[in-house]
């Protein structure tokens, strides 16, 4: 294949604007006559709102909205699943608050200061309800209830024992499998809530339009879902709801849904009949969402020949006060588990439980980092206890080419057609010199080094041969301009990872147009077809898949018009790039003398009034190929202080064809930092007495890793497996979430190799390490 741009390092399309501080984010949007809004949030974890007195605030000139003044609509922020699998339990503003920091009222005024001061005058009468803060106690029959009933689609459901939803899957006969096992190993793992800590706090600007509609700028990963949900809540025709696509200051899942501040801002703007901006403070933001925590019990049966024969995983997820995507989460967790190793006969039991805490939502990996930590720690435990080499043990049992992959739980599956697992494990082992790894028993002294390995994957999108519970397709519009340049209109949000550049490259490659002649248009929901979401690591695989599909249609039109102009057969023509002129020509195959540039074709089509050479279409990927990763991490543990350093990390990825190699490396290295944060530093937990966040919503004592916690540049190695995904655009798969998934387990396995202590709970803090070293027990 004659690749001009795929795999080349080329400048980001938004790069110059970003380095100049000119790229607009939602928080930078200013519209004339705009009001500024703040939200009043609950200081109680569970309470009924008896009365809200906004009179003082209104006297100050502020516009206030209360639960009585917003549509009484029960919704789920995330609308990725099909409606009948979507659990709905939240209101725009609730009459009963279910976590500290849940918004009760909102206030808009000429300045933010005035709005804040007006908010301070609002009096709220609460009836305090008993709160539920422990997920296990929450399920006891005498525990207080967060909900009496909720909705599944349009169907009303009773909530029992605070169980939000559950999912139980049995494949084969696990009991028989365990009975045949030579070893049965069981452990409990515990992963905390952590905060996304995207750098831009969730923001929304809403402008009411003269036609009765609204224009919305918001931090989101999905402009179309925001539009549709706003249309439903406010009973507005979708043609009058326009959501703008713009850059987002990091997301990591925090914008996967229509965030709860968005309808609040819309309600304020509609009441004020003026544009309103609602930008979350960091403390507001931290009270909005956290990563799903998980308690995982895992039991695995193995034969003496290192073949796994059975597994049983029980998962308890403390989802907090609302279901954002708990049901699909449990499904996905079952899929991440089912697709890591060939368990043969296995069981999955997942339960999501309500508590009076900040709602959990997707955060890079969507249950995969949690499952991966458990499984990949467990593989190490088994290898250690049964005397297997950790790498060989994995290679004997992994799910690879020709096997079935659960890309999105039990309903979205496809056969694996590309797989770099063996290559990555082999190369990683060579790079880290695995053969010289010594067991922990041989390590002495204050500073002890250890090497750990873990592998993982993520899905690329949520497509499959048949539609499952998750909606997945994308759209694109591509247009050839009259000078041969190309406009691409894509609804796919680029969260910073380079999806936009990949889209441009795919179009440029197919049309043989130089990269600098293809631009991404500034678009919104009105000017684009539907795209479900930049989630599930689907930007490149599905988003670019759609762009490629549409580019092919545009190519056909180009060739058809050229055939008419050149008076040649369509089938005899082909596109070529002419480097000397930096143009794209259409010519008779093998006979370049008879040629015309695509710009001339477009111009003549205009002059002849044939029309614009453009196409719009949607496309669904019918596979969900896994992008695989492997992490080899070296740690150095100071056994006197419990402080851990990471002297070296080898990050390996099988992303199919690397479309943006620099950004692919950037994803892997960024994920190393986030993974270190997850495994070693971060926890955004609640005080179990008051229900408040221990950090109070401030980052002072809840900081993410800084530049100093990362290994030195020369000690971070990135490697791409040599694979080609036959169903992906130019052989590409995703990488985004995969890049994170096995960092934590590799780190924890390295700690075991250094000091002989297994940690089943993260973050693995110096405090926990020191305590474990003293007790000689597991953390």
């Amino acid at each position, binding site marked *: 294949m004659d690749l001009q741009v795929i795999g080349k390092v080329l400048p980001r399309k938004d790069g110059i604007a970003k380095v100049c501080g000119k790229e607009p984010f939602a928080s930078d949007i200013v519209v004339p006559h705009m009001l500024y809004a*703040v939200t009043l*949030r609950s200081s109680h974890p569970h309470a009924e709102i008896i009365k809200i007195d906004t009179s003082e605030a209104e006297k100050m000139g502020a516009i206030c909205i209360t639960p009585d003044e917003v549509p009484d609509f029960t919704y789920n922020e995330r609308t990725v699943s099909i409606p009948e699998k979507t659990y709905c339990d939240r209101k725009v503003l609730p009459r009963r608050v279910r976590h500290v920091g849940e918004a009760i009222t909102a206030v808009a005024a000429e300045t*933010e200061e005035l709005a804040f001061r007006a908010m301070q005058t609002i009096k709220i009468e609460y009836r305090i309800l008993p709160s539920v803060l422990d997920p296990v106690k929450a399920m006891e029959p005498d525990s207080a209830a967060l909900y009496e009933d909720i909705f599944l689609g349009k169907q009303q459901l009773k909530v029992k024992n605070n169980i939000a939803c559950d999912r139980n899957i049995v494949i084969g006969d696990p009991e028989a499998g365990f009975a045949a096992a030579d070893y049965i190993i069981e452990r409990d793992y515990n992963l905390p809530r952590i905060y996304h800590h995207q750098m831009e706090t969730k923001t929304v600007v809403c402008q009411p339009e003269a036609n009765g509609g609204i224009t919305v700028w918001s931090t989101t990963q999905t402009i179309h879902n925001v539009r549709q949900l706003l249309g439903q809540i406010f009973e507005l025709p979708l043609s009058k709801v326009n959501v703008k696509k713009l850059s987002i200051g990091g997301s990591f899942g925090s914008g996967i849904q229509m965030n709860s501040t968005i309808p609040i801002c819309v309600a304020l703007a509609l009441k004020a009949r003026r544009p309103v901006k609602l930008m979350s*403070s960091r403390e507001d933001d931290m009270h909005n969402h956290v990563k799903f925590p998980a308690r995982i019990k895992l039991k695995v049966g193995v034969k003496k020949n290192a073949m796994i024969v059975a597994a049983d995983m029980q998962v308890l997820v403390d989802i907090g006060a609302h279901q954002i995507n708990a049901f699909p989460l449990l499904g996905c967790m079952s899929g991440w588990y089912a697709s890591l190793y060939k368990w043969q006969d296995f069981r999955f039991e997942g339960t999501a439980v309500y508590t009076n805490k900040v709602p959990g939502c997707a955060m890079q990996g969507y249950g995969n980092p949690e499952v991966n930590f458990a499984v990949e720690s467990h593989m190490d435990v088994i290898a250690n206890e049964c005397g297997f080499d950790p790498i060989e043990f994995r290679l004997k049992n992994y799910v690879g080419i020709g096997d079935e992959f659960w890309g999105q739980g039990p309903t979205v599956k496809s056969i694996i057609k590309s797989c770099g697992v063996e290559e990555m494990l082999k190369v990683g082992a060579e790079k880290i010199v695995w053969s010289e790894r010594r067991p922990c028993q041989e390590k002495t002294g204050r500073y002890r080094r250890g090497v750990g390995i873990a592998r993982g994957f993520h899905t690329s999108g949520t497509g499959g041969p048949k539609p499952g519970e998750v909606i997945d397709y994308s759209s694109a519009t591509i247009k050839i301009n009259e000078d041969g340049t190309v406009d691409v209109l894509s609804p796919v949000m680029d969260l910073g990872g380079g999806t936009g550049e990949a889209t441009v490259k795919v179009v440029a490659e197919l049309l043989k147009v130089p990269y600098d002649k293809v631009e991404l248009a500034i678009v919104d929901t009105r000017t684009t077809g539907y795209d479900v979401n930049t989630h599930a690591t689907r930007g490149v695989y599905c988003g670019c898949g759609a762009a490629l599909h549409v580019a092919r249609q545009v190519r056909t039109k180009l060739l058809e018009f050229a055939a008419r102009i050149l008076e040649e057969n369509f089938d005899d023509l082909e596109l070529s790039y002419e480097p000397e002129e930096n143009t794209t020509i259409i010519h008779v195959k093998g006979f370049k003398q008879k040629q015309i540039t695509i710009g001339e074709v477009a111009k003549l089509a205009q002059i002849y009034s044939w029309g614009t050479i453009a196409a719009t279409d949607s496309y669904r990927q019918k596979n969900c190929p896994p992008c695989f990763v492997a992490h080899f991490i070296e740690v150095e543990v100071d056994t006197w*202080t*419990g402080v851990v350093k990471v002297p070296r990390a080898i990050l390996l990825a099988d992303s199919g064809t690397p479309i943006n190699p620099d950004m692919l490396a950037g994803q892997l290295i960024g994920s190393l930092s986030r993974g270190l944060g997850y495994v070693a530093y971060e926890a955004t937990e609640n005080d179990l007495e008051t229900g408040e966040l*221990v950090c109070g919503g401030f980052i002072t004592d809840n900081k993410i890793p800084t*530049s*100093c916690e990362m290994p030195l540049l020369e000690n971070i190695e990135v490697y791409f497996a040599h694979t080609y995904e036959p169903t992906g655009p130019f052989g590409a798969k995703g990488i985004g979430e995969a890049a994170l998934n096995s960092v934590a387990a590799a780190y924890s396995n390295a700690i075991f190799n250094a000091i002989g202590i297994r940690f089943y709970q993260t973050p693995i803090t110096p*405090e926990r390490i020191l305590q474990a070293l003293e007790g000689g027990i597991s953390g």
Partner: protein
Amino acid sequence: MKTDTKILASEFEYLECHTLEEVLDALTRYNGKAKILAGGTDLLTKMKTGALHTEYLIFVKKIESLNYLISDNNTLRIGPMVSLREIEQHEQIKASYSALFEAVRSMAATSVKNMATLGGNLCNGSPAADTAPPLLVYGATLKLTSSRGVRLVPVEEFFLGPSKTVLASDELLTEISIPDLGENVGSSFLKLGRVAADIAKINVAVCIKRTGQAVSYCRIAFGSVAPTPIRVPEAEAMLVGKELSNELITNVAQAAANLIKPITDKRSTSHYRQQVSKVVLEEALRSAWQRTGGEL
């Protein structure tokens, strides 16, 4: 939430002073209702997070007469408006006041250090203030000035509890002076935090004077283990007059660890602090001793 850190919502009367006299007048006039604004990194954070309210804010950062760093007969005199960054970059401090240099180097972000002042770090009264342990071990004196006059307070007596100092409402910290340390003196500072530049889980400073092969002066101070930065005189006494050995260092560190009573909070646990206090103190003692020219 109850706060909004995007703005500074509180209202106050603002006064910018250009001379010490103006500040002292204003402090007397406002009689406890005013706060001093210098670098602002602690004060504005406290105001934004609702930990502090004030009717009057007196801005003093630009008072030139409070911004100096001079060595006067081997006494180091530091004006309270000297920024932490200036201290970090000061050659003499780097060469001779290792504990103070290391403390400031370990602190915060460069941007914060450009803004924050030494006076502010002390007057904020944090038990975790990184500059406090070095000043404690140097036996520094603080000059507190009011319209009523001037008093000199040893830094040891300055801190009363979290956010509490002996500073009266009409007083301003006007100088930090570090006495002549003499020959063969070495000092050191160590800290453990969560991530780089974080607030200390624990910090320690040591200053030792060596006479011959024996310790003739020793001070040890910890931060983040008590409501104020504290000295551990019993542990210090174990060293004075003794020849330093690895065994003695271990014993002193163990004794010091037994003497402190740290608490568990969101930053760390009591147990951890107690355990690592030994480690950081041992290291600090070794490094300070080495800097006196002593051998182990």
